[in-house]
């Protein structure tokens, strides 16, 4: 394995991750705006984004703290929203698990929906990539995204309430996730998993602390795995 192939994997990852700047910018700005509206100082807002670096969990925590929820409930809910990161970690581990520990630690800090989704798709499409190429590809996908997350949290905190609600910044998240999921619906098993998860999530909507999302996701994964197992058995 040459260092050129690792470099080109990094560059390829950077190119594939760069489009998500479009999404990260409004999303992180929105967090900055809402956090300062909730009474956080600019320093506190920025610390939040640098330390936690998980949009959905940050919004959950902010919302619940605003509602004076007990600290334990705030933490449990926000971490439940982030439980999917453990599943991402599990699904990445066969690919990047062989990298040195410090690289895996950095990768763990940088694991966000977009970097995970882009990387895992790439690994599945090009299984001939080496372990080093894979982790540097991953680093490439996060390089354009993570600094933007910090910077635009700060921008959002600074400009605060001047953003009109009609910009519907909140909808940046569902639109991105849809755009990521659609090309990933490659087989009947993927489609089955996605449809099941969406329906279950609507049915479980009233379950507190966003646990319904997690249960629905697991339900979707089980259906996907079942369809795959049956297809293999029938071949």
């Amino acid at each position, binding site marked *: 394995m040459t260092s050129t192939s690792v470099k080109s994997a990094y560059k390829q990852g950077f190119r594939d991750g760069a489009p998500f700047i479009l999404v990260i910018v409004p999303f992180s700005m929105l967090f900055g705006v809402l956090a300062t509206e909730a009474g956080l100082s600019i320093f506190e807002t920025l610390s939040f984004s640098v330390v936690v670096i998980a949009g959905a969990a940050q919004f959950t925590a902010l919302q619940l703290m605003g509602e004076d929820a007990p600290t334990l409930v705030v933490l449990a809910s926000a971490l439940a929203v982030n439980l999917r990161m453990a599943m991402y970690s599990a699904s990445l581990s066969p690919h990047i698990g062989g990298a040195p520990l410090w690289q895996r630690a950095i990768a763990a800090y940088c694991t966000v929906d977009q970097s995970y989704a882009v990387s895992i798709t790439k690994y599945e499409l090009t299984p001939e990539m080496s372990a080093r190429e894979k982790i540097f590809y991953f680093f490439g996908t996060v390089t354009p995204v993570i600094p933007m997350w910090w910077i635009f949290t700060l921008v959002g905190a600074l400009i605060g309430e001047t953003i009109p609600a009609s910009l519907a910044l909140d909808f940046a998240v569902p639109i991105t996730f849809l755009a990521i999921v659609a*090309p990933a619906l490659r087989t009947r098993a993927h489609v089955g998993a996605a449809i099941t998860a969406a329906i279950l*999530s609507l049915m479980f909507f009233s379950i507190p602390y966003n646990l319904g999302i997690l249960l629905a996701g697991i339900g979707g994964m089980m259906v996907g795995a079942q369809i795959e197992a049956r297809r293999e058995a029938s071949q």
Partner: protein
Amino acid sequence: MIDRTELWIVIICLGIGSFALRFAFTGLVGDRKLPDWLMRHLRYTAVGILPAIIAPAVLWPAATGGNYDLPRICAAVVTLTLGLIWKNVVGAILGGIATLYTLQYILS
């Protein structure tokens, strides 16, 4: 007003907890082989969790107080359709945003 001590407890514990979740497998399991049934499920992580997050956010967005909102729903349908046809993430996002703003403008 959010209590300062509580805020910092949340920031620090959430930071540690989030890192632990992300490090759980890549860090501790490494490249040891996981059982086949588990891998079979993990292949559907993204297509399971993401739709579960999206579905309620599209139909009952928090920004509209949980009420269904036509521009948001149409934007979601356009994004999904474009993503399925083009297999292009950015194209689908831009199409969705254009739909959202156009309909908001027309309906306002």
